[in-house]
C-alpha cells in the first residue's frame, strides 16, 4: 500500500488576471501526497472550503492508487 498522506507546503492568496483585464481572487495550495508531488491546485477564493480542498486531494490520491496498484 503506497503512502499518500497529504502534506500541505504552501497555501496563499493570489489574484488571477483574466484576458479581459478583470481580476479574480484565488487560493493557491501546494501539497505532496506521500512522496509524490508537488501538486499545485487553485481554488476560487469566494467558494473555497476545506471540503472542496479535501475532495480534490482525494481525487488525486485515488488516481495515484489506481496507477500504483
Amino acid at each position, binding site marked *: 500500500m503506497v503512502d499518500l498522506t497529504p502534506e500541505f507546503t504552501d497555501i496563499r492568496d493570489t489574484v488571477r488576471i483574466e484576458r479581459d483585464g478583470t481580476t479574480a481572487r484565488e487560493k493557491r495550495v501546494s501539497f505532496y501526497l506521500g512522496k509524490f508531488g*508537488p501538486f499545485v491546485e487553485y481554488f476560487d477564493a469566494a467558494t473555497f472550503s476545506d471540503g472542496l480542498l479535501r475532495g480534490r486531494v482525494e481525487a488525486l490520491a485515488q*488516481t*495515484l492508487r489506481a*496507477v500504483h496498484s
Partner: protein
Amino acid sequence: MTPFNGDALLVMLLTFYPIVGPAALARARAERPEYFAGGVIIGREGDALLLPDGRVFDLIFNVNTPIQRWQILDVTGGGPGGPDHPFRNVEGPLVPIDESAFVEPTPHAVFTPLVAASYQELTPRDNAIGVSQTTLTEASSPGDLEAALSATIDPAFPALNQELASLDQSVPADVLDAARQQGFVIDAREHDLDEHAPPELPADDPGPPPSRTDYPDVEIPQLPPPF
C-alpha cells in the same frame, strides 16, 4: 517556479481531464501551468511538452486515435534526469592560435641616441637661461619698485578718505532741490518742429533712350513642350 514532476503531471491529467486530446492538454496547460514547470506544448499534433532544460515528453499515447490516453514518456533519451548539459557546445573545427609561432620583433634603440644628442646641444643653452634668470632675480628688487610707485603715484588712502568725507557732508535734500531746479532750466515740454525742411533737389536726367538699331531684335527659339 514549481519543479517539474512527471508523476504529478500525469496524475493531474488523469484526474481532472478524462477526455484525452491535444485540446484537453492545451486547456490543462492554461488552467494548471504549475505542473508544466514553464514548458511549452510542441509537436505537430500538440501532444508533446518541451521543458526549459531541453527535455521533451510525449504526453498522449496514439494521439488523435480512439485509443489515445495520457502518458509521460521522455523522448529525449536523457533518462529521468535528462542530459547533463542540454546546451553544451560541440567540438568545432577551430583551435586556439599557437602564439609561439609568432616571433616578437627585436627592439631597436632608434630614438635614444637622437634624444641624447639633442639634450647635449641644449645643455649650454640651459646654462645660459639659468644665468639670465639669476641676473633678473637679483636685479628685480622690491625696494626699487616701491620707490618708483611712491614717486609717480599718489597714495590712495588720503584720496579715498577725502571722498568719503565729502559724501558724509552732502545732504540728499540738496541733490533733490537741484534736480527740481533743472526743470526751469531745461524746457521739457512738447513743441512743433520750428525748422523747415530743405527744398528737394531735382532728380538727375537719365537722358534719351538708346535707338533700337543699337539693340537689334533677336529671334528667341521656341522650346518644345515638356510633354
